[in-house]
């Protein structure tokens, strides 16, 4: 699935311009990282893809179909989303949270009763295993899990309907460096296995370099860089985060990346 942003502008009611003349095209199957400091508009950009936010101007086109009230009910089930705050039901079990990802394809009656079709039950088990959680976790309540474990649940839920498109909004924002690498590797692996296109927002440059096929960098609602990870030069990074953030620092993050490569 491809996505086209065509001169998208998003102005919130309070006057904040979160997206300003944003245009780009992400082809099918690409792992595209949206990079930028806090408040750059990354979340807003991702939310324009599945209609959680509506552009004030311009168009968002997914697989040739413009996002709008008419197309959303059909498009949304094909777009999985992984959230920064995990957005799981803390009191519910891992099983309930993961299988809820299949709700759009479950009849209202069986959804209300709370009994999902067998194939979804099977699939939920497979996915929980794929994201690296043991079987007994199925019955565990999400609030009893660590942050990293919760995000694994979030990833499993996002892939329940084999989405052709995956939106990951700072999926590793509150996780330690090693867990961040693990989760991103997980998302990349699951997406590659399905040929899904990924739009993933991050604010760690090292992680972006390690996982992205392509990086789009934003600052204050504008795209300031769009290209291959190798082309993201220190000068660009400096412009992105202001003079104080340069290459160095984050040594622990690079250490974690090396471990992942081995």
């Amino acid at each position, binding site marked *: 699935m491809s996505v086209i942003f065509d001169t998208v502008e998003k102005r919130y009611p309070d006057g904040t311009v979160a997206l300003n003349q944003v245009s780009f095209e992400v082809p099918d199957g690409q792992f595209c990282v949206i990079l930028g400091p806090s408040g750059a508009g990354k979340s807003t950009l991702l939310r324009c893809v*599945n209609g*959680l936010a509506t552009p004030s101007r311009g168009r968002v086109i997914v697989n040739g179909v413009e996002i709008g009230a008419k197309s*959303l*009910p059909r*498009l*949304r*089930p094909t*777009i*999985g*989303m992984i*959230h920064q*705050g995990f*957005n*799981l*039901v*803390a*009191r*519910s079990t891992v099983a*309930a949270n993961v299988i*809820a*990802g299949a*709700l*759009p394809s*479950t009849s*209202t009656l069986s*959804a*209300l009763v*709370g009994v999902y079709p067998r194939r979804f039950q099977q699939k939920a088990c497979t996915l929980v295993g794929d994201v690296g959680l043991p079987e007994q976790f199925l019955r565990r309540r999400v609030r009893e899990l660590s942050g990293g474990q919760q995000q694994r649940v979030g990833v499993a*839920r996002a892939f329940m*309907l084999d989405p052709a498109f995956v939106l990951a909004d700072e999926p590793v924002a509150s996780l330690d460096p090693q867990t961040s690498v693990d989760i991103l590797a997980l998302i990349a692996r699951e997406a590659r296995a399905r040929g899904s296109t990924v739009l993933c927002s991050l604010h760690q440059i090292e992680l972006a370099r390690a996982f992205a096929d392509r990086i789009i960098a934003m600052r204050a609602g504008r795209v300031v860089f769009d290209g291959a990870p190798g082309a993201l030069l220190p000068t660009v990074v400096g412009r992105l985060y202001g003079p104080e953030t340069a290459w160095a620092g984050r040594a622990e993050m690079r250490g974690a990346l090396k471990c992942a490569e081995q």
Partner: protein
Amino acid sequence: MRGAMSALAESEGRSSPAWRFPQPYGWRSGATAALVAAVLLFTGHRVELDRALVMTGDAVAAAAGSGRPSQVAAGFSTVARQLFPLQLDERTDIDRIENFDSRRLPPFAHVETTTVRSRELNPNTLLLEDRFDRKAVLVQPFGYAFKVGQKLLETLEIALWGTMIAIVFGLPLALLSAQNLRFGRMAYYASRAVVGLCRAVPELISALFLVLAYGFGPIAGVLALAIHSVGFLGKFYAEDIENADPKPQEALIAIGAGRLKVFRHAILPQVMPQYIAYTLYILDRNVRMATVIGLVGAGGIGQELKGRYDMYNYGHVGTILVAIFLLVLILDQLASHLRRAVI
């Protein structure tokens, strides 16, 4: 040492003795207190609290043996004398039992013969004469206690069904009136109005009219309780839906799940402990109300109570009151246990 301390305080420019520390109470609080006191005194006098105080004091003094007559003490002792002994057995005149068969008595029952004295005018002597009739009565030991038990069960059933119906109607009304589920303006206002109206109708009053429509008996009771409870549950349920964490909901909206699915899988699990607590509270309340609305004929123990009271059968009334007291006590314990178990 002291000099050094004050020098430090001065050099930092803090702790000025000329500053005034803000006081919690000012002339405003004094005026408010005076006004409240005046209103309380005035209304207290209007509802005769002063008289109540005096009468209660007299009664306590009388009980302690002051020897002075007390209206309240006399009243209470009359009530106590009439309520006790509690009526536990059931006595029926055998003449009133159709096809009485003395060889086939109900279990545990026996027949007693009593002599009843009555005065009659003798037409020959024109004098009042005592007449002694022998009367056979069927006595069922604990027969009345058993009947009270049955009525209590009926009361519980009325409360249970009133609550069940309230859940069935209250939940959809709550969904429609929760603003974050966006069922639309019309649904919002209509359901809010229905819920508000239900809450505004006291059970005792709706029961009065429901008895006219459905006749004496439990139907009126169940409906009266249901109507009022819908008003409460509809409001409580809706408030929790609106206050539920929106993040899990957004996750399901993002993949295109409809409102009902979002409610069932992102909201209901969050609010379930609260819903159970509310429902248990309403059930607890309905049991107590179910005894009261029986007074206007809406079934259950209250109806029996009213009937006996009107027939001056105070022994029976005593039994009923003790039974209600025990029931409420037991239910209170049960409810708090349940509440602790589910939350």
